[in-house]
């Protein structure tokens, strides 16, 4: 009997030891991201390095979730029962949704608890994710729109290849010179071309120094209740540019989103285009030695506009699991992902901004900038923008952006005139906002 008892005791001791050892095994966290291709490989490498650096303490598992839309939808679907991950990459326009969802753990809480030095982060980038004085998510892959132009074509028609157009008057003027027609009068090269991308609409509002929605551009304590671009003349000005370009035959319609415009630029069918800074690397690789790429600031609507661009891209959101150990591990991971060395690697691999100021002093970053001086334009543009043009926050942004694209098409197809486009667009977005605010 005694033997059996002592055996049981020994066994329970062993079990106790076992469980004690288990607590020393690394804290496992899951990271969801939406970076495919080369960018996804970079993420995998960064996570691998993190696991090596924190061996025995934290182990992060990286899971690719498809597009930004897919990732946020999966969070939404899973959010009703259990949160599926500890850190998730969410796109810029998903920010208001994440705040409203109540699942997010504001990064500010971790910053305050630790006394983390927030000044390390680019102020213009942090501004976008700061709502009501609180940083909600950690900027990670940030980009702004840029103007790209074909320097070789500029030289060909006698334009100065070092001077990029600054506004649409200049674009139209240059585009007329850059347009090439064949013997039959068919255009083989347009001077200018851009995708029908709702993001640009938002950026131009910022460039004009105007708000997109009310309640301090959706950044107040209360969420936005309606759009204001129909009252300030902002939308009218932007649609005016589209209409003028199409009617005068300066551009041809290149579809929604950016892909077709990008392909047309690479194949020399358009000489000037608008794209994200994040496309720089892939443009350089795809164009190769075919022609030289120049970069300029995102163009103004009016020559005297004094606003600025806001950032797009994604940020890292921590989810409130209630498990301190996991949350602390997730915070370590977030800090690692934005550390200067990692950001220099990320910038070189992708073309996204390094979001940590200290990255600018690293040789890896300087070498990359020397190799691709075009990237300097993006940084200058960001630094010349005041944080007050951080851009709007809106719960129904994905829908609003899609509506902007649909109405742009209705305008250029001649279904609606400019005034009707603005009125109907505002009406539809307002009703979406109203229903969202009513049900959430």
């Amino acid at each position, binding site marked *: 009997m005694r033997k059996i008892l002592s055996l049981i005791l020994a066994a329970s001791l062993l079990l106790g030891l076992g469980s004690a050892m288990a607590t020393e095994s690394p804290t496992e966290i899951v990271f969801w991201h939406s970076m495919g291709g080369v960018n996804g490989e970079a993420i995998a490498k960064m996570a691998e390095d993190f696991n090596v650096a924190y061996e025995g303490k934290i182990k992060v598992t990286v899971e690719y979730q498809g597009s930004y839309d897919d990732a946020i939808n999966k969070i939404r679907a899973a959010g009703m029962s259990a949160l599926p991950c500890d850190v998730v990459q969410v796109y810029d326009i998903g920010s208001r949704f994440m705040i409203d969802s109540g699942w997010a753990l504001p990064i500010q809480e971790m910053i305050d608890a630790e006394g983390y030095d927030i000044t390390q982060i680019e102020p213009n980038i942090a501004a976008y994710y700061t709502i009501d004085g609180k940083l909600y998510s950690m900027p990670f892959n940030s980009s702004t729109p840029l103007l790209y132009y074909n320097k070789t074509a500029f030289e060909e028609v006698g334009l100065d290849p070092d001077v990029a157009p600054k506004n649409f008057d200049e674009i139209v003027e240059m585009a007329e010179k850059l347009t090439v027609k064949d013997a039959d009068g068919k255009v083989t090269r347009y001077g200018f071309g851009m995708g029908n991308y709702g993001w640009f609409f938002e950026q131009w509002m910022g460039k004009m120094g105007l708000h997109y929605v009310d309640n301090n551009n959706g950044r107040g304590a209360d969420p936005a209740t309606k759009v204001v671009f129909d009252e300030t003349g902002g939308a009218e000005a932007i649609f005016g540019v589209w209409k003028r370009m199409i009617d005068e035959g300066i551009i041809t*319609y290149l579809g929604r989103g950016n892909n*077709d415009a990008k392909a*047309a630029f690479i*194949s020399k069918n358009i000489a000037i285009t608008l794209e994200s800074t994040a496309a720089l690397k892939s443009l350089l690789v795809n164009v190769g030695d075919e022609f030289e790429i120049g970069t300029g600031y995102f163009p103004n609507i009016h020559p005297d506009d004094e606003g600025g661009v806001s950032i797009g891209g994604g940020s890292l959101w921590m989810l409130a699991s209630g498990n301190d150990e996991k949350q602390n591990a997730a915070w370590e991971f977030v800090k690692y992902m934005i550390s200067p060395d990692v950001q220099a690697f990320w910038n070189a691999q992708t073309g996204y901004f390094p979001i940590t100021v200290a990255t600018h002093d690293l040789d890896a970053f300087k070498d990359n900038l020397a190799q691709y001086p075009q990237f300097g334009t993006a940084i200058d543009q960001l630094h010349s923008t005041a944080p007050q043009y951080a851009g709007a926050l809106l719960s129904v942004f994905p829908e609003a952006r*899609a509506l902007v694209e649909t109405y742009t098409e209705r305008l250029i197809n001649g279904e609606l005139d400019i005034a009707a486009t603005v009125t109907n667009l505002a009406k539809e977005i307002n009703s979406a906002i109203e229903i969202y605010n009513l*049900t*959430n």
Partner: protein
Amino acid sequence: MSLTDSLKARTTKPRVPGKRGIYAVMEPYLFLLPAFVVFGLFLFYPFGRTIFLSTFLTDKLGNARVFWGVRNYTDLFTSSSFWASVGVTFQFVAIVAFGGLLIGLATSLLTAKKYPGVTFASASYAMPVAIASAAASMAFRMILHPTNGLLNILFGTQINWTGDPRWALFSVSMLTIWLASGINFIFISAGLRGVPDEMYESASIDGAGYWRRLFSITLPSISPTLFFQIIINIIGAFQSFSQIRLLTQGGPGDATNVIVYAIYRDAFFNFRFGTAAARSIILFAIVLVITLIQFSFEKRSVHY
């Protein structure tokens, strides 16, 4: 005991209360139970739930929040965008259903006779069956590109295939017809094999030419196959999604915004499940009516 005897024994058994009696009553339902469970779970419950949701406004998680009565429906019926979407759907379905059938019929008639290379031709005509619509759409994006697409280069045109409202629906339909042509080809070819040679021989003796034989013998003989294929094409066309998602996203304007795509946008992009549910119910009603029309048509024109 023969089968009829056992049936007789069962039917003549008196329905007395007791174990065996209850079992006899329950027995058929027990056999039906697995089917009911599956249908209930995957058809009836979702259907009921859709009707329920269509009378509500939902929050961002899809929970019913605000009772909205029939307003989801009336909002749709008074929206010009919804009617545009219905109109586009009918055009698209008609083009795809008959276009797919015509291509399938033409290709299967071309390969009905034996000649060198017929196997290769048959394989090529059947191939779209094996092509995923998403992959084909990505390829067509490049083929239809407005400035450097293959199609414009071949024809020497400058048509904006997916960006011009006059061409967008046509482009998407052509892609869908091509994708559907493979299955049409396979079924119609099989139908053609089933037409007895004697009928053609007898018609030839009577002096009937190719077209006469086609319209008087071939088409009536394969009418059940054609009818089946039209139904399959219509169902397929109503369900078309990936080519619209990838090529036009419903645009330009509402030019290719078919109902299924509009449902997707409402439910999984705008997160208004109420409106999406109302659209689904309307789509259900439309498909129901079309099916009823088809079957009444079948009785008159299809020869078995």
